[in-house]
């Protein structure tokens, strides 16, 4: 990456696709993954969607290709322990009812979804089980225990294409999420689309802007050396544009999560991914 042409481009005021996503292909443990596909019909301004993996440096990309090198797996191991841990008044563990965690294959691809008129995320489902069926305390929405278990459950869908429902009961939530995506907020007066739709592929300072896909969450970020949840990331983004963030697990973030999941339709689930 030669500095000179970059500076020339900047001077020419041409903030174009100078550093667009690379053309590397992702294979994890030998299996091929879809990191690029045609954008779903409802995305009017984007033709092709790319996984966030395609925007990271080659060293960061390499970390995701091997389940040992991927630092997220030490937290997946913690998730396995938590899955078997008996907690709560009913003296049960997750595994008391869910004998094989592998049976969760496919779940990550369909969440968030509408259950009994309410939009639910994976974190909601976990805490619902804990409080209503285990008699245990709910976990903090983006805390270490929750991310370890959502990483474990999401891993069971790894390689499968994202496929959330946006019609029928989901439609009003999806519309709300779409509206939020395009609404400017905060002191910096920016919407999600300003960076992730209008400027993906461009450098923002030293960061390579992605399309803001969520196919790899919870993700291990090099920045804080731990798993990060979807709503945790939304919160961070909002703070970065100096807006008061919505509540994690609240209606706005859930609607936004549904909308974003639909923008990733067809991309392979990469949970737990590695990002910067």
């Amino acid at each position: 990456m030669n500095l000179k042409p970059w500076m020339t481009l900047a001077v020419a005021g041409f903030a174009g696709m100078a550093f667009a996503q690379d053309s590397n292909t992702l294979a994890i443990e030998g299996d091929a993954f879809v990191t690029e596909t045609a954008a779903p019909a409802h995305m009017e301004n984007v033709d092709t969607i790319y996984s966030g993996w395609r925007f990271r440096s080659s060293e960061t990309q390499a970390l995701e290709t091997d389940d040992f090198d991927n630092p997220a797996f030490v937290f997946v191991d913690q998730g396995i322990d938590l899955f078997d841990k008996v907690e709560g008044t009913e003296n049960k563990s997750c595994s008391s009812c869910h004998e094989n965690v592998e049976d969760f294959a496919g779940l990550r691809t369909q969440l968030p979804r509408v259950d009994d008129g309410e939009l639910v995320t994976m974190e909601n489902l976990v805490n619902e089980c804990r409080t209503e069926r285990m008699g245990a305390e709910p976990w903090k929405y983006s805390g270490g225990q929750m991310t370890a278990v959502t990483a474990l459950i999401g891993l069971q869908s790894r390689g499968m294409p994202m496929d959330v429902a946006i019609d029928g009961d989901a439609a009003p939530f999806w519309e709300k999420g779409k509206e939020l995506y395009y609404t400017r907020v905060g002191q910096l007066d920016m919407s999600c689309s300003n960076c992730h739709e209008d400027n993906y592929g461009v450098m923002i300072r030293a960061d390579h802007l992605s399309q803001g896909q969520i196919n790899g969450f919870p993700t291990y970020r090099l920045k804080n050396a731990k798993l990060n949840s979807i709503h945790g990331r939304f919160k961070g983004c909002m703070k970065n544009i100096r807006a008061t963030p919505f509540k994690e697990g609240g209606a706005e973030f859930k609607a936004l999560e549904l909308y974003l999941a639909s923008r990733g339709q067809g991309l392979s689930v990469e949970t737990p991914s590695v990002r910067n």
Partner: protein
Amino acid sequence: MASGVKPRVKVPKTAAAGDTITIKTLISHKMESGQRKDDDGNVIPRSIINRFTCDFNGQNVIDIALEPAISTNPYFQFEAIAPESGEFKFTWYDDDGDVYETTKKIEVS
């Protein structure tokens, strides 16, 4: 015991005598560097894994001294020779006095 510390190692299950064996190790540990300050401005004291050793059937493969510049969740990859079948022993030493250990067997033909 520092909380949430969990080792992970990758060792092939079998090898031929004389082969070079690639070993990967990771341990979940915050590696508090001693450079950070808390909200009141007080320095958060250093608390890291300061030493890692790998031995095979009692003989040393590698002995690493770690400083705070090693990233959170210390990762090491190195090469070993296993002259016969036996057990690799991995040991991590924490500033706070705790010692974490795990072992992995290997069949050498």
